């Protein structure tokens, strides 16, 4: 007679099957064989360890798990190799959003099978292990968090030292009393009814709502992430560890750090160190003064470059007062009057000069060199309203500029290099050869016969002046000494 050790045997529960207990693995295997021979198919055995010979006794077919693992492993070969090929070759044409990054290392090929085998192997092993692990649980229909078997107190020893045979009620041959008799006949030590509590099947009323809300809340983080990925954001990136901001170093143009004894690290208190006097940066010797400064080779008192730059900077801050004073002492004889050796004036040089002039000079001096560039027009207009201080750009057709005695070639080169009056220095932007090319182009421009705005009103100069009548007077260039 089945022993009842369940509390719930009323109408709310349904019979799942009969569970017979055996005390050793051999009698379990024998009972399984008997059950199979008696025609039962919906059977299962439970044991604390895998019992040998139980598979044929119960008629268990070999699992398909190895083939699942094999197919995943073969897929992993393609994924592993494909990943490495895609990410380390020039695959930008396939997906411009996530292009590959070809590493150029000693001219080696981007994709070479021997070097890509280790990672492919690891990908195969990892995918196969996942397939075996999860495949096994899925085929076993686990995890199963509720099972009527666990309600039988005797069944707790199935993971310890007892062996069980279950014949399910769903089996065609199952009959409550005759099956029980058969089990007793096969040597069952004890028989339990396995009943499923049907009241468990009804979910609590609040559960669906809470589950739905939980599922919706889970969507929030990915939505936030995808939203921020698709947006541009002007705020600086999140900086987890701002160690780069607090480096133990002195930045340029700052005071040198103070030492432990209160002394400054350097006597002059500057963090930056000046180069040793007389040191010349690589490729900056520029010994040929005719080429690099436009000053004759035999001229002795060479004006230092920094003074020129300094005067240009001073004039920026103090206005026009310096203009008259600074160049007054200039010795015009020091400037070269011909192009230096190495600069050959030809059509190619003039074309280069025109190109550079149009880029660097025309913004103030205008394309025709008449001092009507757009920056000049705007600055003159602002100066007229008192919002800016500005000396109008010179017309290059001005008689003084044109005069080879007052403006020899070397002086034009010097003007471009170091600036003059309001004009800034261009030697850091324009190479030496290009500056000479501009000089050549300016001389060619001066031969075109364009008249400067002061001498006669030309239509070209008139038009912009009309647009800014109040600035018109100051636009007329003053004579340059």
């Amino acid at each position, binding site marked *: 007679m089945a022993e009842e050790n369940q509390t719930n045997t009323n109408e709310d529960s349904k019979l799942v099957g009969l569970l017979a207990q055996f005390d050793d693995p051999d009698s379990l295997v024998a009972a399984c064989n008997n059950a199979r021979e008696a025609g039962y198919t919906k059977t299962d055995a439970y044991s604390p360890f895998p019992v040998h010979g139980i598979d044929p006794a119960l008629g268990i077919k070999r699992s398909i798990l190895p083939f699942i693992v094999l197919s995943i492993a073969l897929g992993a070969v393609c994924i592993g190799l494909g990943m490495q090929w895609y990410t380390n070759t020039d695959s930008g044409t396939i997906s411009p959003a996530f292009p590959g990054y070809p590493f150029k290392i000693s001219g080696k090929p981007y994709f070479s099978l021997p070097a890509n085998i280790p990672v492919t192997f690891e990908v195969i092993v990892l995918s196969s292990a996942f397939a075996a692990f999860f495949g096994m649980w899925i085929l076993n229909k686990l995890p199963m968090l509720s099972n009527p078997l666990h309600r039988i107190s005797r069944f707790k*020893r199935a993971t310890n030292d007892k062996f069980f045979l279950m014949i399910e009620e769903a089996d065609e041959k199952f009959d409550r009393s005759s099956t029980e008799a058969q089990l007793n006949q096969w040597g069952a030590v004890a028989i339990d009814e396995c009943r499923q509590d049907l009241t468990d099947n009804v979910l609590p009323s609040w559960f669906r709502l809470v589950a739905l809300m939980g599922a919706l809340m889970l969507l929030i983080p990915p939505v936030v992430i995808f939203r921020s990925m698709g947006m541009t954001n002007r705020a600086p990136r999140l900086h987890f560890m701002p160690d780069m901001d607090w480096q133990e170093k002195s930045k340029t143009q700052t005071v040198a750090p103070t030492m432990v004894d209160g002394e400054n690290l350097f006597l002059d208190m500057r963090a930056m160190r000046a180069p040793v006097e007389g040191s010349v940066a690589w490729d900056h010797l520029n010994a040929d003064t005719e080429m690099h400064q436009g000053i004759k080779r035999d001229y002795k008192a060479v004006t230092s470059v920094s003074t020129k730059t300094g005067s240009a900077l001073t004039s920026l801050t103090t206005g026009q007062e310096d203009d008259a004073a600074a160049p007054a002492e200039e010795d015009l004889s020091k400037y070269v009057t011909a192009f230096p050796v190495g600069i050959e004036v030809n059509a190619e040089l003039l074309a280069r000069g025109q190109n550079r002039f149009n880029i660097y000079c025309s913004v103030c001096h205008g394309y025709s060199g008449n001092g009507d560039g757009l920056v000049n027009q705007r600055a003159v207009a602002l100066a007229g309203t008192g919002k800016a201080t500005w000396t109008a750009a010179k017309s290059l057709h001005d008689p003084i500029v044109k005069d080879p005695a007052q403006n020899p070639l070397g002086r034009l080169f010097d003007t471009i290099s170091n600036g003059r009056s309001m004009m800034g220095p261009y030697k850091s932007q324009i190479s030496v050869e290009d500056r000479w090319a501009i000089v050549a182009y300016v001389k060619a421009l001066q031969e075109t016969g364009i008249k400067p705005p002061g001498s006669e009103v030309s239509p070209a100069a008139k038009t912009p002046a009309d647009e800014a009548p109040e600035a018109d007077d100051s636009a007329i260039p003053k004579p340059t000494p």
Partner: protein
Amino acid sequence: MATVNPSLDNTHDDAAERSPLVLGLDYAGVTDTVCKIWEDEKMPKIWWMTLGVALSLLAILGACVGHLIMKGVGVWGNNNPAYWGWPIVNFVFWVGIGHAGTLISAILFLFRQNWRTSINRAAEAMTIFAVMCAGLFPGVHIGRVWAFYWLFPVPTEHLAMWPNFRSPLLWDVFAVSTYATVSVLFWYMGMVPDIATFRDRCKSRIGKFIYGLLSLGWTGSARGWHRYEIAYTILAALATPLVLSVHTIVSFDFAVSQVPGWHTTIFPPYFVAGAIFSGFAMVVTLLVPVRKIYGLEQLITLRHLENMNKIIMATGMMVGTAYGIEFFIAWYSGVPWEGFAFYNRAFGNYWWAYWIMVTCNVVIPQVFWIKWCRTTPWFMVIICIFVNIGMWFERFVITITSLCRDFNPSSWAYFHPTWIDLLMLIGSFGLFFTMFSLFCRFLPVIAIAEVKGVMPREHADHH
């Protein structure tokens, strides 16, 4: 539960006269013996002491890692020319220790070595904790740990870069992370039936809930066991080439470079043998006290320990042979730099490290030729500690001597570790022993189901 008969000797050389692996226990006896560790309300004092010391060391490790992340890797002794200092020494040391666990659980399983069943669970746990310690060092060595995901091929629009798949260091990332993952899967899958045993014996509600979740509803059904055994065999078959590949790839970190003393083809087998050597030494060091404290002498018998000592001696001699072959090839190749690198190892300014290594790895394990030495627990622990000291020095010698004496004499230098180096090495033992202590407390230390599977059936009759 039967008591152990002291006259039973399962270390006898003749298999016919040898007692069975599991001494005098039936199925319920095995379950009770293992579960007693976990069911005891009070843990032994020595467990609390171990956990206390381990937690203090773990705190030191945490402080060191925090300091390192805030200040940068400059707090280590790594500097020109030894850019790889103790961090990689510790990394290779810990990864190597992990290998014995996989060897016991996977390779001995494939070879049907039934004696592995009592020790494989603890050995696999040791693998996982050792790989955790190993992963820590390269993990923090990358400097900007918050950008760790750059190690993996993550599609990012702002970075527009991918890892270099032809670099052995990247192979290492894949090998070690795969190894850690597969080891955890293998360990957890093997544990599920035993966690189900815990679930069915547990009395507290919290314990029932946690072990109930972890056991995934395992019932021990025959169909379940059928698929489980297939999956277990597949995982073992996957873990076997994996464990060989991991230390091979670790050795590629060195062997693929051109530094004299590193650029050798012997490195992969030599590293794998060394890994098994040090790993078995660590298993013995852990299991001798564990079996004593928890009364597991009937499950982890002297024969288990003796078998492991035999493997230690065998792999120790493989490593010793590799040391000799390295010198032979250095001479035979006729390459002056190779010749100098090895002369310098033995007789240069790191001679002391080299001879510590040779003494601990080659000379000392020879005592296991004597049966008393390999069947006396306290003595074998001392030998095994020497082996692990020697194996740490092996990685030290390989890394430091070659880097400090490379091709260019103007860059030669002497490596000086900092106190952070030292504390992090000690702290990693804190992490390891904390994890191992918790494992002993909360999880089945012995593979209960597997032990029952290899027990002779007549033992089940008397109860």
